[in-house]
């Protein structure tokens, strides 16, 4: 069982630092992370790791001069060195016009982000899941790869205005790739799961899904690139939304002019069926009720039935627009401009996944994408990437056969105008900040999605 440091110790350390700041304002963020991860490949555990550490970020400011320092040496001497570094930087630095200083004291809603049973998991429990996945794969002659991980984390935010915010978190995640043989490019299937309570996790259903997809992926045929109607399963659609978030949904990306939402607020930028909300309180896995600047997280409607509505702000990017922070700042450990939504939900629709597949004729069902990139033309949200771990040609509403991987390249603003159906259920998809939040995403049916290339070995 991972032991929590606890808010009393964090805030006592913070009080001590704030007292030593004299007349400088001070913001402090502690992050304690105990992470265990078991990786499997070729149906054996090949990596099994555990780390446990606490780090602190300190930002001091006097007027609009700031200094930042971080350390994982959480000792009186280490913390004092960190503060002295921050103060020295502040004195030597140039003013940052518009820097709003620390957030005022606030009240936060409660969110339930800690589950005792998850904190109790260790390498033996993770290895058991790995063994069971491997055994399931053997039933179909499949090789298993993937990972099982658990995290126990604590975040504490304090500042010289009296902000004291603390949240313990647990999370688990797993992903499995089942392969039919170990050759260069075997048929494969994928399943993944993330959540806060490991006792509620359906690991068996997840690796079973990966195995069933691998079996269905046998004997893939090559099809030519072109425009196809597609059903993007939640993981595939999530990879597009993850990139869309990165290029579009922060105050910084709008102020830089790179976001497809810049200059277009209030305008319809994509289809009616696209409504995206950042909601730490209503997501499948509850999120942090405050950001790393100590500002309460707002529920934020980002895109409402295709209309650009809002983006996430830190105190600094909000101040540039004469607005209030939305509670999405990354705090002293990042730049004052850095902010992102961390709990995006795409509003669900009315169809089941099976119903959407039945709506395809000559279309493609996609499990997930590989290596999506959204920087080709960010104003149009042009993205490219490859299908991976299971894609099928669907004719007359029936899965006809597996297909070899294809490359898509398309503008998401345009493609999402052609979303014709949305799954009635959201799935929690892991993000790289998964201890803090995740994406809640349904599958979608998109007409005329553009594939521009296919895989192959060449000469």
């Amino acid at each position, binding site marked *: 069982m991972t032991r929590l440091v606890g808010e009393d110790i964090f805030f006592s350390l913070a009080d001590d630092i704030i007292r030593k700041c004299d007349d400088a304002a001070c913001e402090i963020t502690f992050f304690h992370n105990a992470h265990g*991860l*078991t990786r*499997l*490949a*070729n149906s*054996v*555990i*090949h*990596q*099994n*790791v*555990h*780390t446990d*550490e*606490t*780090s602190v970020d300190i930002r001091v400011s006097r007027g609009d001069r*700031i200094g*930042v320092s*971080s*350390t*994982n040496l*959480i000792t009186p001497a280490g913390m004092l*060195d960190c503060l002295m*570094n*921050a103060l020295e*930087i502040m004195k*030597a*630095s*140039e*003013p*940052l016009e518009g820097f709003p200083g620390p957030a005022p004291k606030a009240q936060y809603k409660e969110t339930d982000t800690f589950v005792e049973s998850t904190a109790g998991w260790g*390498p033996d429990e*993770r290895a058991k899941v790995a063994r069971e996945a491997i055994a399931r794969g053997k039933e179909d002659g499949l090789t298993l*790869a993937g*990972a099982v*991980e658990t995290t126990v984390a604590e975040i504490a935010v304090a500042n010289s205005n009296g902000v004291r915010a603390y949240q313990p978190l647990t999370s688990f995640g797993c992903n499995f790739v089942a*392969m039919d043989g170990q050759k260069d490019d075997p048929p494969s299937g994928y399943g993944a799961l993330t959540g806060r309570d490991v006792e509620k996790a359906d690991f068996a259903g997840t690796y079973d899904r990966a195995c069933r997809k691998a079996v269905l992926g046998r004997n893939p045929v090559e099809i030519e690139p072109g425009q196809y109607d597609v059903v993007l399963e939640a993981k595939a659609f999530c990879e597009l939304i993850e990139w869309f978030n990165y290029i579009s949904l922060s105050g910084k990306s709008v102020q830089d*002019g*790179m976001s497809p939402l810049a200059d277009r607020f209030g305008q319809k930028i994509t289809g009616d069926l696209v409504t995206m909300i950042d909601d730490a309180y209503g997501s499948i896995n509850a999120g942090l009720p405050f950001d790393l600047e100590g500002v309460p997280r707002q529920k934020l409607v980002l895109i409402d039935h295709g209309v650009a509505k809002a983006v996430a702000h830190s105190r600094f990017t909000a101040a540039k627009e004469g607005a209030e922070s939305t509670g999405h700042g990354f705090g002293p450990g990042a*730049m*004052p*401009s850095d902010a992102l939504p961390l709990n995006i939900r795409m509003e669900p629709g009315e169809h089941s996944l099976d119903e959407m597949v039945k709506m395809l004729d000559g279309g493609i069902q996609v499990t997930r994408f*590989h*290596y999506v*990139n959204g*920087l*080709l*033309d960010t*104003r*149009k949200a*042009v993205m*490219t990437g490859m299908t*991976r771990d299971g894609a099928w040609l669907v004719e007359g509403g029936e899965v006809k056969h597996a297909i070899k*991987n294809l*490359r898509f390249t398309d*503008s998401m603003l345009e493609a999402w105008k052609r979303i014709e159906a949305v799954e009635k259920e959201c799935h929690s998809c892991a993000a790289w900040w998964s201890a803090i939040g995740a994406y809640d995403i349904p599958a979608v049916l998109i007409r005329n999605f*553009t594939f521009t290339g296919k*895989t192959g070995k*060449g*000469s």
Partner: protein
Amino acid sequence: MEHLKAAMDRLKKLGCDYADARWVETKRENVILRNGKVEGVSRTVDSGVGVRVIADGAWGFAGVASAEEGDIVAAAEKALDIAKASATAKKEDVRLGEVEIYQDTYDTPVEKDPFDVPLDKKVQLLIRISEILHGNEKVVATEASTGGIHINKRFVSTEGADIRQHLVECGAGYEVTAKEGDEVQRRTFPNSFRGDWATRGWEHVEDMKLLENAERIRDEAVMLLTAEECPVGKRDIIIHGDQLALQVHESNGHPIELDRVLGTEISLAGGSFLQPELVGNFKYGSKIVNIYADSISPGGLGTFGYDDEGVKSRRTDVVKNGMFIGYLSSRECQALTGHPANGAMRADGWRNMPLIRMININLQPGDWELEDLIADSNGAIFLQTNKSWSIDDRRVNFKFGCELAWEIQGGRLAKPLKNPAYTGITPEFWSSCDAICNDKYWHIWGIPSCGKGEPMQSAHVAHGTSPARFRQIQVGGAA
């Protein structure tokens, strides 16, 4: 850090097949200006110990952010427990290939320690750059940054290795975004994504000619606002060294990682088309394509004395006269395949287990003058500076976007083109290479953020390249 040896003694007593421990202390300083204002000056200290154990024929790893003997020994015991848990799902015992065991030290040669350069000097340089970049009303955003890193490491093992290293890294770069109406374009210098980094001191930044190029880069961003879209079709292309570095990275560097080839990254980063039976039998590129891996090139961001399992740095040929002949390997992969460990096992700090990572993966220069190559390439497209990157999970089908392209007419870069992209199949692409510029144009581009592994690890790697020509490649605009 004698406590590392205490941890090794404890593990020997408890019974392990092998163990090593790494103490790593990383100090960073970053200075970032956005829109001419100092938005981020930060110093970070990160220190801890990672212990790797083979017990009952399986791996375990535990890390702790502490320098206390009790904590380090406890981490060692935790790693042992984890190894025993891993052993419940093994097929065969993990074995390590035999290597020479060293007791040694290594220090990055540095002329000007970046931490000795006054903060004000760094800030003032970035302010002057920003002023130039903002010298056009169509510029809407700029960012300029510099940074320095000190890494102190000590590696000990139950085999008697004891290696101390002090590595120094330094880098800088800037970007400028121009906007007019709905059109937005960005240029960066000397390379995209945090510029160019090296295992050198502040002299690396001084050599970059950051100020001298700022006006040109700003004007190119503005020029792109009204440039024509890159045409679609098969064209001869010349790729500048900065973009070619990423091409080498994605289509050669990753697929030669032998752990990936053997499937250990399959669930996340994917596999590799360069399977073991292809070594010595596969035409990867044309006869002028020679690629080698090393951790010894002066200044390369992948240059050091020893890797994170104590293997001495060296050079390995990867592609010779177009034939695929070698991998990046580890001691475990050496035992499995016979491909010798070649100093490529690296971990992101103390908290991660080492993986096979790129070091310096370099394309050997050819003999062309760039001016001659451009003059010889009428109708070709010249592509510069990476904007986007994507490649499939076997590293075969790729698509890269660049910041800027030029159509070559009349023996010169005649017409700028916006939103250029090119796509291809890795061995077909490298087989179409018919000209590589000489060492006058060759530069080792330092990439400070190569991701791999679960948990995700970021490695510092480099690629030596000079501009090269490829025949009849599919090019096109972003969409």
